[in-house]
């Protein structure tokens, strides 16, 4: 990252004489950092604070939802500060410009970006603090700072005997000049990066003491449950509020934008009252689709509209017209729910022109906008306290649950906690979009000569921009929120990154083919959608890597070598493909009744290839083994990389084997884990993960484990049965 480090790092003294470093990430340069040059005062949102009594606080601007930022980002600071990661206390960040994700210009955690965007700034912050502490100590000792060193929270005198604690030095250090040219440690000197294997949050999460959103408890807190329209977009017409209000413990029954809220002194009383609530809905503007119509709509759109060209090389049409063999297939995938194990929830407390929110959210600055929408408050009158997240997977990028809690609390004089039931969580999710893919390819003498991929379905930004637009410009008057939300879409690619949610995993087709057409036919049937772990790669990966497998078989070639020959100029793709094939025993005999499938997908900068060994047992698909090779650049925490890849594999297998949300006249048919199952312990395959040793800038691992396993399993089943499955979830008896 070529920029003067002085541009984004500031130093100052805290109120109690502690050393505080504030950091403004490169993408936000020019935004206020919270540092007042004249007064030397600091807002309490420093990235790093070292106190006189040796406490080290690190403000974690990316939320912890299992993916390991709490440990990984802390390790970056610890490495350069020369303290053990365990000696640092991470704190979840409040909403502030400094904490925005530079890629999105929003304070959100998603897109497997946390490590890549923090890699240099956080190490620089740690190194700068260390250098200032060393210079402070050298000044006290009157020795050459270059001859001092730091270790385990102490500065060591050149004599190797004397030392001073960081806490003793913070006041002096805060007066040192922050230099832009601080050197980062060479990799050979790393003590924690690439070696740290412990998770800093494991203890709290193994003793029941980690605080998730649902665990927040406030004085006089009451509980709310919300009855929402069973069909998306339905409006409340009338309800038996009087009757319900008379029930035990019920304090209030109120209509809010999203339905009817019942507030009670106890959660269970609110739930029981909900059973008695009868709402008449106005469905005139509501969703009325059933699942088959979604795909009919897609096919009609695909017939009528060839789509916007997203990538075009050579002359695919004429190559296909002259090919020996043209293969033409259609793939489809259903809507998917996120099913975080912690259901949606939020706690809100309205007190005199101020709303305070406690919530497990992936995007706290969007949470402020959600509150502003349903109250008369401005975003800066809203405080968001982020807790641990009991899973995110993209679901908690949307702030509907905060909006509900705020709407209710705004009309109550005490804190209110809204908790969704599992059924509500499943039925009122925003889903991974259902998608359709039309693929054509030409083969000449067994050589792939042309590739045409038409992606059919909605894009996500249109659904997201409602609160994301205003969050980028929080000073906007509220009456302009909706306009700004729409402008966000118009300005796509200018004010916001281009929305590639529908086409990622397709436009970056890595195989060397001279003639390529990638097109997107945009069609949105109105079913609420959002990002879902691995997003576009989750469906495009299945289409691309299944089709590659079909083509290999059509060409009479081994699916691994067919891919490999087309990756001459893609060494990192090729390396993980080779390693996965070796690790998965591709060229070794497969046990009776089983078969292997392979797939390769680069997503979010990380290269992952997988070999799946599967069979059918007692009428069910059984996955025995998954071998994964991963290149995510420099590894910070090897154990977390393995965990994320393995977790991604199980997440992908859950989708491949079971994942399907269906609609009947606008109503979601699934409700709980009996009809939206997750993979269980007894179904777990043996997973082996091999990590490529690399010094490239680290890339994320939260999502890239998911996409390859879905086509790899489908490809294994084809090898087993000779029947190609082109829709998900996969069936044992297809």
């Amino acid at each position, binding site marked *: 990252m070529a920029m003067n480090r002085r541009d984004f790092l500031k130093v100052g003294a805290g109120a109690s004489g502690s050393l505080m470093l504030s950091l403004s990430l490169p993408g936000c340069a020019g935004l206020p950092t919270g540092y007042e040059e004249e007064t030397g005062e600091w807002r309490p949102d420093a990235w790093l604070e070292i106190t006189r009594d040796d406490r080290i606080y690190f403000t974690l601007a990316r939320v912890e939802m*299992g*993916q*390991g930022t709490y440990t990984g980002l802390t390790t970056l600071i610890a490495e350069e500060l020369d303290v053990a990661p365990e000696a640092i206390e991470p704190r979840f960040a409040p909403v502030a410009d400094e904490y925005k994700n530079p890629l999105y210009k929003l304070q959100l955690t998603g897109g497997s970006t946390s490590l890549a965007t923090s890699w240099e700034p956080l190490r620089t912050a740690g190194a700068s603090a260390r250098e200032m502490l060393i210079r402070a100590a050298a000044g006290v000792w009157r020795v050459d700072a270059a001859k001092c060193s730091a270790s385990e929270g102490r500065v060591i005198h050149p004599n190797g005997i004397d030392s001073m604690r960081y806490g003793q030095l913070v006041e002096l250090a805060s007066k040192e000049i922050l230099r832009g040219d601080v050197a980062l440690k060479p990799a050979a000197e790393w003590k924690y990066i690439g070696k740290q294997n*412990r*998770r800093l*949050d*494991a*203890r*709290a*999460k*193994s*003793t*029941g003491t*980690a*605080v*998730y959103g*649902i*665990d927040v*408890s406030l004085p006089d807190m009451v*509980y709310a449950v919300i009855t929402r329209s069973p069909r998306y977009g339905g409006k409340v017409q009338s309800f038996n509020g009087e009757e319900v209000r008379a029930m*035990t413990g019920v304090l209030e029954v109120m209509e809010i934008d999203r339905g009817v809220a019942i507030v009670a002194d*106890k*959660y*269970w*009383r609110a739930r029981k009252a909900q059973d008695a609530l009868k709402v008449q809905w106005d469905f005139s503007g509501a969703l009325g689709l059933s699942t088959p119509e979604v795909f009919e709509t897609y096919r009609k759109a695909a017939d009528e509209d060839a789509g916007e060209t997203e990538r075009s090389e050579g002359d695919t049409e004429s190559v296909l017209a002259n090919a020996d063999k043209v293969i033409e297939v259609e793939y489809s995938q259903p809507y998917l729910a996120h*099913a*975080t*194990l*912690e*259901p949606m929830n939020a706690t809100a407390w309205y007190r005199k022109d101020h709303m305070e929110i406690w919530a497990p959210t992936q995007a706290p600055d969007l949470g402020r906008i959600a509150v502003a929408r349903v109250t008369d408050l401005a975003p800066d009158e809203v405080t968001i306290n982020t807790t*641990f*997240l*009991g*899973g*995110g*997977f993209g679901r908690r990028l949307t702030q509907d649950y905060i909006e509900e809690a705020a709407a209710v609390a705004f009309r109550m004089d005490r804190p209110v906690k809204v*908790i969704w*039931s*599992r*059924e509500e969580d499943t039925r009122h999710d925003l889903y991974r979009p259902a998608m359709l893919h039309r693929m054509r390819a030409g083969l000449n003498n067994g050589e792939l000569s042309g590739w045409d991929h038409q992606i059919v379905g909605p894009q996500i930004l249109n659904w997201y921009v409602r609160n994301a637009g205003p969050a980028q410009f929080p000073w906007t008057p509220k009456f302009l929120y909706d306009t700004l939300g729409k402008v966000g879409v118009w300005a796509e690619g200018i004010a916001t990154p281009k929305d590639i949610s529908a086409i990622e995993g397709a436009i970056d087709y890595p195989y060397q083919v001279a003639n390529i057409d990638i097109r997107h036919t945009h069609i949105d049937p109105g079913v609420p959608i959002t990002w879902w772990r691995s997003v576009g790669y989750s469906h495009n990966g299945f289409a691309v890597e299944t089709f590659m497998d079909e083509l290999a078989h059509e060409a009479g070639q081994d699916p691994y070598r067919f891919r490999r020959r087309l990756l001459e100029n893609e060494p990192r793709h090729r390396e993980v493909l080779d390693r996965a094939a070796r690790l998965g025993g591709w060229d070794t005999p497969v046990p009776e009744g089983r078969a292997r499938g392979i797939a390769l997908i680069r997503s979010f900068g990380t290269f992952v290839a997988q070999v799946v060994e599967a069979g059918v047992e007692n009428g069910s698909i059984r996955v025995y083994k998954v071998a994964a090779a991963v290149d995510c650049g420099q590894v910070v925490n090897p*154990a*977390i990389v393995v*965990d*994320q890849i*393995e*977790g*991604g*594999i*199980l*997440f992908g297998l859950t989708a491949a084997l079971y994942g399907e949300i269906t609609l009947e006249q606008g109503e979601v048919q699934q409700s*709980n*884990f*009996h009809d939206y199952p*997750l*993979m*269980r*312990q*007894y179904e*777990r395959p043996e*997973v082996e993960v091999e990590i490529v040793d690399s010094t490239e800038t680290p890339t994320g691992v939260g999502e890239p484990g998911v996409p390859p396993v879905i086509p790899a399993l489908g490809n294994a089943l084809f090898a087993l049965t000779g029947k190609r499955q082109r829709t998900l979830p996969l069936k044992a008896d297809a």
Partner: protein
Amino acid sequence: MALRLTVNGEMHSLDIEADTPLLWVLRDELGLPGTKFGCGAGLCGACTVHLNGEPVRSCSTPVEMAENGEVTTIEGLGSGDRLHALQQAWIDHGVPQCGYCQSGQIMSAAHLLATNPSPGRDEIVAAMTGNLCRCGTYSRIVAAVESVVAGEKPAQEEA
């Protein structure tokens, strides 16, 4: 109704509707939020606690069924400041990701080891199959349980 129950060795008297699930009594009345709400239907195991030494899904257990009973939750699994061997193994193996299901996982594993101190792999898998983990920590869970078994440290029976 008025009822009494013992939770983590401490006796409590409560006045509460008999059909209130034990889960919400633990979390909201007794201030023990370590036990989690996941599905409300006994399908995910996040709310697993021990009632009179048996694992139960507290989300689907009316509190009246716990009357005069002894309940152990994740908060009471260790003894004083000492962690249960499984909790230490969970930390050593870095089991939790999001961590939300782990209280329930540990309570299921603790019951297994309390009744069968040296289970085989299949027995561990079978005992843990009722506990869902959306992050996919299953292999580390088995490794952590097996490490406790291999250490021949019998899991301490709860009070």
